[in-house]
């Protein structure tokens, strides 16, 4: 198994992932590590139904996904791993799911969030999560779709912000 892309996208599986990233990284398996979707059967079913049947989809709680990665059931797969938030990404990394690169896709706006790019809005907690990941050796970049330029996330932080 190899992880071809790890991405934070609050929309999880949607057009950008399936139409742009999957052909670009040649993924044949999408793994969604998200507790709330895993616990809502209908939501999970809808998400699975949006993926062509020739691709494998795994949607589960973060802990279960880590078990999945340590088992051999994903052998030979090219995995596209999705998180919905920085907190999930950090939690998974701390629990032993070691990815080396992290792509920031869509993190939508909300109260108290600062805009980093057109599609990325972060609050102070997100920033500290990402910093922690970076300290652990993860290379974090922002790129919405493959046709966009890849930019290191730190270059996007407005001056006077961040820790």
């Amino acid at each position, binding site marked *: 198994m190899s992880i071809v892309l790890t991405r934070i996208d609050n*929309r*999880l*599986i*949607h*057009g*950008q*992932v*399936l*139409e742009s990233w999957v*052909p*670009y990284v040649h993924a044949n398996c999408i793994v969604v590590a998200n507790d709330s979707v895993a616990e*809502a059967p*209908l*939501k999970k*079913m*809808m*998400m699975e*139904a*949006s*993926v*062509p*049947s*020739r691709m494998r989809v795994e949607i589960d709680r973060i802990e279960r996904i880590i078990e999945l990665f340590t088992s051999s059931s994903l052998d030979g797969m090219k995995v596209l791993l999705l998180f919905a938030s920085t907190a999930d990404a950090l939690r998974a990394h701390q629990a032993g799911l070691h990815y080396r690169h992290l792509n920031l896709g869509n993190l*939508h*706006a909300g109260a108290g969030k600062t805009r980093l790019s*057109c*599609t990325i*809005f972060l609050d102070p907690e997100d920033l500290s999560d990402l910093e922690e990941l970076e300290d652990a050796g993860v290379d974090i970049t922002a790129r919405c779709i*493959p*046709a966009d330029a890849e930019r290191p996330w730190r270059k996007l932080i407005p001056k006077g912000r961040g820790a």
Partner: protein
Amino acid sequence: MAVTRITRIHVWLRLMLLQASWNFERLQGLGFFFAILPALKKIYAGKDLPQAAQKHLSYFNTHPYLTPSVVGAVIKLEEEQAAGLEAEFPINDFKEMVAAPYAAIGDALFWGGLRPLAAGVALFFAAKGILWAPLIFLLFYNLAPTWFRLAGYVRGYRQGIHSVEFMQRHRLPDWAIHTKEAAVVVLAGLSAFLVFQHLQQHQLPSWLGLFTLLPMILLGLFARKGISTLLLTLLTAIVILVTSLFWTDLAGWLETYKGY
């Protein structure tokens, strides 16, 4: 109070302007609010109305051709809620649940599959110099989107939350793949046609045409690597312009091969 047919048509017409205020913060959020407002006005009255409307201003985005399906179902859910029926599902959860999957399905089916297919078909006519080619494109392309916009809306309102079953049952993502495969075949035929036509015009031997596959595959690989289309186009144009400077020599060389 039930939403009348006239109001439902009003909402559907407003959906044509769904993305007029598309923005990076709420995406289609404001548009969703705008579209559904006439229905909310019928369901809620007085003080409740602004509150109920406020909910629909939140972050929302899906494929514009499939938003009518969502709006139809949401009107139904709002009606049920106002009538005091126990909600199967909180309305906001429903919107959130369908948004990304519908977007994925619509993007794959319409943008990724149908658009290149329709363009490929219409370009055959355009290459022949037929002025109706754009109309052929519009007719061919718009059939399916119009059906989804209309029937999806009607089904959404009729079935409420159960309208999602349609998407699951029909394996639309697989249909998207089939459409894309068809598009690849049509575009291949189109390329062959353009090359053949070109060679005939210049009275060049036809077998040369098979060599076009090579640069095309190369360009495709470059594109896959993420090199921008604009750069590839301009490079190709420059290569052709430079080659044309030596054209007379090349033409003389080809002349000797003619007739083989």
